[in-house]
């Protein structure tokens, strides 16, 4: 075998959007290279439907992987990579992608291009385009030895419609025991998409002035839009929002289609985390705030007036 192997993540019995994004892109790349597309699935889930996204073959390691295990995931991916012997592996830049892929690459002795936002075929090989320095620079990344592994930031490619095709599933044996055990697991209080995968984000800054007003202004607008809540570091440091809600160079790097910044000045470290958002809306009472230089739509005004009215207007759309 050769070709492109796509790591397909799943959750509670269904495949994540990133699986569709990456398979769709892999099909396009494979066509240009004249090669095949297969899927790697770690854990129990019905996987033949990945044929509907263009996988010609599925390799699956069975077992319960619902609590993350770095050792077992890396071993499973390595067993699949050995069975499938691909030239290229694509995977989402998720927690598992970031934790297990470097281990896989260390085993393969090859190379890894992280958090690519684009992939193309150039000179007969797959080349990634990736941000560096928190998006202040971009470069092409190539792997020149062994299996080329790329992790890809969520929302980089469209998710194709799933066809009715079915792919054969080959079970790959892998018995690895992790000496690390999960003794406690707390699910998120808020049931929205993870910031790094969210399609819509509403973020609040220092200007919210208290946790109460953050809860009263930012969260309801986010809820109306079905968006995930984000925050500037100033808002997190002041205790208005949670640590895991921070967007920026030392927080989450996000890539939504819609990013709404409420009372955020647009510091270089904040921009670093959200500048690749497709549409940026900034609400700020200071017309000279730097965020306006990056906004698709800038509203000069008081967020305490604008946000509730925006929520009401969106709610009227139904």
């Amino acid at each position, binding site marked *: 075998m050769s070709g492109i192997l796509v790591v397909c993540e799943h959750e509670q019995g269904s495949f994540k959007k990133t699986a569709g994004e990456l398979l769709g892109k892999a099909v396009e790349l494979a066509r240009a290279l004249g090669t095949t597309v297969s899927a790697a699935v770690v854990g129990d889930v019905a996987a033949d439907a990945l044929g509907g996204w263009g996988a010609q073959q599925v390799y699956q390691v069975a077992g319960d992987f619902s609590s993350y295990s*770095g050792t077992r995931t890396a071993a499973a991916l390595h067993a699949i990579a050995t069975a499938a012997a691909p030239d290229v592996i694509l995977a989402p830049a998720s927690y598992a992608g970031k934790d297990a892929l470097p281990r896989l690459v260390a085993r393969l002795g090859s*190379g890894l291009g992280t958090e690519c936002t684009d992939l193309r075929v150039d000179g007969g090989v797959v080349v990634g385009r990736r941000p560096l320095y928190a998006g202040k620079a971009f470069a092409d*990344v190539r792997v020149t030895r062994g299996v080329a592994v790329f992790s890809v930031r969520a929302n980089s490619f469209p998710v194709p419609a799933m066809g009715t095709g079915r792919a054969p599933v080959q079970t790959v044996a892998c018995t690895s025991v992790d000496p690390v055990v999960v003794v*406690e697991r707390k*699910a998120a209080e808020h049931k929205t998409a993870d910031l790094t995968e969210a399609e819509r984000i509403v973020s609040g800054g220092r200007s919210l002035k208290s946790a109460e007003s953050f809860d009263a202004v930012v969260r309801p607008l986010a809820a109306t839009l079905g968006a995930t809540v984000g925050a500037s570091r100033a808002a997190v440091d002041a205790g208005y929002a949670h640590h895991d809600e921070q967007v920026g160079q030392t927080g989450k790097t996000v890539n939504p289609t819609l990013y709404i910044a409420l009372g955020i000045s647009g510091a270089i470290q904040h921009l670093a985390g959200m500048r690749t958002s497709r549409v940026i809306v900034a609400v700020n009472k200071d017309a000279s705030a730097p965020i306006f230089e990056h*906004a698709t739509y800038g*509203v000069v005004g008081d967020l305490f007036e604008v946000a509730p*009215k925006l929520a009401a207007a*969106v709610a009227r759309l139904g």
Partner: protein
Amino acid sequence: MKIGVCVKITPDTDTRIKIQGDGIDANGIKWVVSPYDALAVEEAIVTGEKHGAEVVSFTIGDESTQAVLRGNVLAPGVARSVVVSEAAALKTDSLGRARVLAAAIGREACDVVFCGKVGIDHDNAQVPAMVGELLGWPVISRVTTFSAEGGRFRATRNVDGGVVEVVEGPLPAIMTAERGLNTPRYAKLPQLTAAKKKPIDTPSLADLGLSADVIAPAVTMTAWDTPPPRPKGRILQGDVDTVVDELVRLLREEAKVL
């Protein structure tokens, strides 16, 4: 018990990056400890104090990194530093660097090694997990609490989707620091003075049992550029109700995101 910490020296987050060839223009850059590594340093010092253990730092970087290490790593409480400055180590990829760090850590027989969750320059988030794999140690990514007892660790990690897991496992192990783990201390003046006398060991690749061939890169990065400027946006101001209606219309009809 001995504690290790991997420290990368990176441009300050305020830096405006200018491209020069396949890399950045290093002129005028202020170099700092990568912010997540500052958390790792603090955790290493705290853990060292708790267990009466020596703390050693590991860096791959040129000679200029030594001054940053003295002021920000040795002064607040790390006992000594190991710095690898050989050209081949400075010019390789993550796996090459992980081989160097794994060899340096291996010489010291550390019980736990703290790293940052990501180096804020190349943003790879690769090196710690590769070091763990090479050493055959468990790796726990994005840790917000850590404790050790009787040859085992207990840590809290942030996995995707806001899920928080408490994990336990055997030492030695690698931990990568996430924000919330601690608040790094600043060194006091006497500590800054004392740090000038702390040892910095600079082994060659040969000292580490490595060669330029063994750590040769498999990853190339070319065609560096700054991000394309965003097209000029539209500023809305005036009566709030009118502005909000116009914004919703634009989001629906022009941007097609509602």
